[in-house]
């Protein structure tokens, strides 16, 4: 069998070592769960494409990360998410941007990849495509977390944009 490799990231930035132990444990637990989901697929002979989708979905479902549930807020208190996926075997790719209300944007990107006529859908058109393909649609409340909302209030108060996770961390997208 060929060598199997899976790498994941959960965001980069100026992460302070003074942050709480509990917070790091939460992040690391989420990373391990993501890695485990993809590892299982690869070890069972599944495709790299399925593995990366599975790993990203786990992090989208985890409010610790800035994707899916737990995504940061726009200025007008919405969640607009972007996702992309590419298959190295076929070079097929799918991307979505400005997506709200789609529970797992990465699954929508995969649907776009499978839809041969287009490779990039945005905004309302992407949402409509998600509904047509039976993906889970949720209220904006699903994505909201107290941490993210407080980050928005702070950023708006200071009239600046902030890059992912805690503003104090200056952690990036």
């Amino acid at each position: 069998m060929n060598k199997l490799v899976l790498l994941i990231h959960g965001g980069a930035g100026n992460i302070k070592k003074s942050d709480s132990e509990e917070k790091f444990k939460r992040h690391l637990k989420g990373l391990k769960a993501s890695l485990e989901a993809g590892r299982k697929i690869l070890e069972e002979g599944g495709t790299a494409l399925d593995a990366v989708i599975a790993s990203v979905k786990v992090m989208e479902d985890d409010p610790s990360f800035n994707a899916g549930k737990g995504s940061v807020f726009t200025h007008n208190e919405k969640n607009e998410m972007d996702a992309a996926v590419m298959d190295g075997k076929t070079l097929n790719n799918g991307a979505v941007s400005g997506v709200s209300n789609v529970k797992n944007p990465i699954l929508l990107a995969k649907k776009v990849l499978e839809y041969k006529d287009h490779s990039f859908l945005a905004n309302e058109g992407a949402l409509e495509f998600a509904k047509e393909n039976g993906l889970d649609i949720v209220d904006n409340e699903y994505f909201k977390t107290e941490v993210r909302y407080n980050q928005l209030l702070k950023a708006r108060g200071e009239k600046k944009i902030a890059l992912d996770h805690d503003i104090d961390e200056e952690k990036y997208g």
Partner: protein
Amino acid sequence: TVGAVALDSHGNLAAATSTGGITNKRYGRVGDTPIIGSGTYADNETCAVSCTGIGEQFIKFNVAYDIAARIKYKGESVEKASLENIENRLNKDDGGLIVVDKYGNYSLPFNSNGMYRGIYCSDGVFDVKVW
């Protein structure tokens, strides 16, 4: 931003990236960095890449595809091609990326002080890191 790249038992590569973007961003802003070629790219001939950081920078420098192109046309290693982007093309604190090539060589460079990341390799590695 979250992302993953993988090499499977058939030698196939894939990349995926997903993000909420930047807090307090204008509605309609796209980035950080799930755009094919900028922050996400995969080609069985070269590598699979997923990026995280300031999307505008990754878009401007077409980072994900640049790494694949360096491997394909210049014969650079996955480490050299990715470090060239992280250290010399992007600005300090712009972010980081993960990349694996068709041989299973990989690199996870970043130019911020930390990047949440994880590595699984069938030769016995299963690890998560921050700094």
